C-alpha cells in the first residue's frame, strides 16, 4: 500500500490497519526530515491548507501549522472561539468562502461531533479532522500510538490504560480505535461518572481503581481533567479527584514493573499527574509533541497525494 483509501482523515474508525501502518512508515521518514539541519521538504509546494479552528487549541494548531510549513504548503489560519452559527454564518458558508479562495485542504477543529464528516459530505475538499467535539481526534491517537510503538517496539499484545474523563474525551475514543486496530488491549479507568455507560461495548476493560489499572498496563495515557466538569457533579472537587485518580510517583514506584506514561497535554500539574511523573524518563510527553509534527506531515502528505 502506498496511498490512503479515503480522501479525508475523518477518524480512526474509518482507517484500516494497513493505512495506519502506512502513516507510521511515512512519519518515520518525516521524523528524519525534522531532525535534519534543513527541516523542510518541498512536497506540498503548490498546496494551500486552511486550518479552521472553532475551538481554542494551542498545540494542535501549532503542530498542524508547523507540519504544513515543513512540507512547504501555503497556510492560512482561521480561528473563532465560538461556533460560527452564533455569528450568523453557518459552518458550510464559512468553509465554502474559504474554499473559494482556492484552498486545497481543510484542517478543522469543531465542538460538534461529526462536523468534519458533515463537511466531507457537503464540500469539495480534502478534510482532516483535528478534533470534533467528544468524538474523535485521529492525529492525536496516531501520534500516541506512534510514540508507544517507538518506545516499546510494537503495539500488538501491549496493554494500554486510558485514565480520566473518558466521557468527554475525543482523545480516548480515537485512542481506543487506534490501539485496538494495532492489536493492543485497552482499558479505561476513571470515576464511573466520567466513563460512558456503554464503553465496554467497544471492547475495552473498565477499571475504577487507578492502582489496579496501573498494575495491569504497559502504558498509561493520562487525560487532562477539565476543571469545569466538577460543576455538573461528575466529581465533587479537584482535590478529591487528584487524591484518588491523580497519578503520582509513589504509585509508579509501587509497581513491580516499568510502565510508560503518556499525556495529550496540556497538563494540569498536581491534578491528574504530578510533576515527578510527568518529567520522569519513562514519560513520553515531549516525544508525543515531536512525533505529532511528523504524524501530521505524514497525513497531509498522503492526502495531498490524492489531490487532482
Amino acid at each position: 500500500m502506498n496511498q490512503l483509501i479515503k480522501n479525508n482523515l475523518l477518524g480512526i474508525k474509518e482507517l484500516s490497519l494497513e493505512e495506519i501502518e502506512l502513516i507510521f512508515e511515512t512519519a518515520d521518514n518525516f521524523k528524519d526530515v525534522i531532525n535534519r539541519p534543513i527541516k523542510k521538504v518541498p512536497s506540498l509546494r503548490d498546496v494551500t491548507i486552511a486550518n479552521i479552528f472553532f475551538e481554542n487549541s494551542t498545540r494542535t494548531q501549532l503542530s498542524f501549522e508547523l507540519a504544513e510549513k515543513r512540507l512547504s504548503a501555503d497556510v492560512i489560519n482561521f480561528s473563532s472561539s465560538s461556533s460560527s452559527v452564533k455569528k450568523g454564518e453557518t459552518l458550510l458558508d464559512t468553509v465554502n468562502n474559504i474554499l473559494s479562495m482556492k484552498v486545497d485542504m481543510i484542517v478543522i477543529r469543531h465542538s460538534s461531533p461529526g462536523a468534519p464528516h458533515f463537511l466531507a459530505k457537503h464540500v469539495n475538499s480534502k478534510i482532516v479532522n483535528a478534533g470534533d467535539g467528544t468524538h474523535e481526534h485521529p492525529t492525536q491517537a496516531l501520534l500516541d500510538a506512534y510514540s508507544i510503538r517507538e518506545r516499546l517496539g510494537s503495539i500488538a499484545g501491549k496493554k494500554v490504560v486510558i485514565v480520566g474523563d473518558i466521557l468527554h474525551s475525543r482523545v480516548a475514543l480515537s485512542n481506543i480505535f487506534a490501539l485496538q486496530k494495532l492489536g493492543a488491549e485497552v482499558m479505561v479507568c476513571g470515576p464511573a461518572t466520567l466513563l460512558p455507560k456503554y464503553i465496554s461495548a467497544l471492547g475495552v476493560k473498565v477499571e475504577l481503581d487507578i492502582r489496579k489499572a496501573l498494575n495491569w498496563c504497559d502504558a498509561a495515557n493520562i487525560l487532562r481533567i477539565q476543571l469545569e466538569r466538577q460543576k455538573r457533579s461528575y466529581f465533587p472537587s479537584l482535590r478529591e479527584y487528584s487524591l484518588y485518580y491523580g497519578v503520582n510517583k509513589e504509585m509508579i514506584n509501587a509497581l513491580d514493573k516499568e510502565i510508560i506514561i503518556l499525556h495529550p497535554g496540556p497538563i494540569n500539574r498536581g491534578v491528574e499527574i504530578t510533576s515527578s511523573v510527568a518529567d520522569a524518563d519513562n514519560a513520553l510527553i515531549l516525544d508525543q509533541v515531536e512525533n505529532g509534527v511528523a504524524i501530521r506531515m505524514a497525513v497531509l502528505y498522503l492526502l495531498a497525494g490524492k489531490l487532482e
Partner: protein
Amino acid sequence: MNVRNVVVKDTHSSHHGQEVDIRIEKGIIESIVESKIKADDPKLITPGLMDLSSHFNDPGTEYKEDLITGLKTACEGGFTDVCILPNTLPTADNRSTIEYILTKASRQVTSVHPLGALSKELKGDSLAEILDLRASGAIAFTDGVVPIMNAELLSKALQYVQKFKGLVISRPRDLSLSRGGQMHEGSVSTSLGLVGISSLSEKVMIERDLSILAYTGGRLHIHGISTFESVALIAEAKKSGLAVTCDVILHQLCYSDDHLSSFDPFYKVDPPLRTDKDIQALKNGLANGTIDALSIDHLPQDEESKILEFDLAAFGMIGLQTAFSSLLSLASKELPLDMLLEKLSNGPRQVLKLPKIKIEEGEFAKLTLLDAHLKWQYNEESNISKSNNSPLFGQLLTGKSVGVINGEKVYFPS
C-alpha cells in the same frame, strides 16, 4: 359515488377480505356488493387513516409547513383525520388559536383535530384553560413535544379533565436525565461521541406518569414509546386496570440507532431511534395489543434547520405521505398488514374515544383507498409537504394511497 373492485381491509366488517363494489351517497355507505367481475389488481379499502400527532407549524413557522400543505400531505398519504400538536407560535393554549386552526382547515378533505395545550404557553407551570379549549374544539390535552416535567401539573390535569372524561397525552422523557441528548444512549452513541438520551429517561417518566394516574384516576395516553422497558411497563399497568393507552411512532419501527453511524441528521428524531431489541419489543407490543396505535409524528424541518452539524440539527422526520409505503415494508407474518392498518385507523380513534369506522352499509363513509403495488418516486415533484426531511426522500417507493373519502369530501390523486 361508486367505488368498484376494492378488497375490504377491516377485520370488524362482515365484508373483510372480499372484493366488493361500494356505493356511497351523501357521505353514507349505501350498499356493499361483491364484485361480479374481478379485477386483476384490485385496490384495498380501509377505514380512514388517522394520525395522533402531527406538526403543521401553523401559526408560527409556516415556512416549514402550514395547515393547508400539512393537510394536503396527509390527504395524499391517505389520512382522513389528523391530530395536530399545540407547539405553534403562539401556542394552542387559547380559544382563538384553536378556532383559527379549525377555520383555516375547514375546506380541506382531511379533518383536523387540534390537541390543546396542557399548560399555559407550554411552559409546564400552570394549567391552560382546558375547558374553554375543549369547548372550542381541542380533542385532547398535551404539551406536545415538550415533556411534562412538573408532576403536580400532570396530576392536576388528569383530575381536571375528568369533568368531561378528557384525555391527557404525555411524551415520556425526563429532561434532567437526558440533558443535551442527541440520540439513543448505547454503543452507537458511545462510538460517535454523542450525548445519549437514555432508555432510563423514558422509563422513569412512564413510571412516574403511571403512579400519578393510579392516584388521580382519569385517562392518560403515553405518546411515542420507544423502548422495550416501556412496553413492559405499559403491559403491566394495563393488566392492573389503569386507564392508560400508548402509541409507537411508525418510523421507530423502521430504523434503529445504527442508521446514525454516519451522522445523518435525517435520522435525528425525538424519541430517538433505539436498538433492534427495542424494535422487536415494540412490534410484539403492537401484535399483542399492549400498544393501541401507530402514530406518524410528522415534524417538518427546512434545510436551514436540518443541514447542519449533527448536534445543531433539529429533531424530526416527516412521514404522512409515505406512511402506507412504510406500513407495507413492515408487514409480515408477525405484523399482518390488516393489523397495522387498524393501528393507524381505528386504533387512534379508540384512544380518543371517537366512534369506530366500519365498512358496513349505513355507516359514515370515512375511507382510504390503497394500492399496494403502485411504485412511485418520492421526490421534489411528488412531495406535497413544504419540507423534505425524510430518509425516504429521493427513493422509489412501493404502495400509495389512491383515494380518500371523508363523508361528502373526496380526493383522488391525479
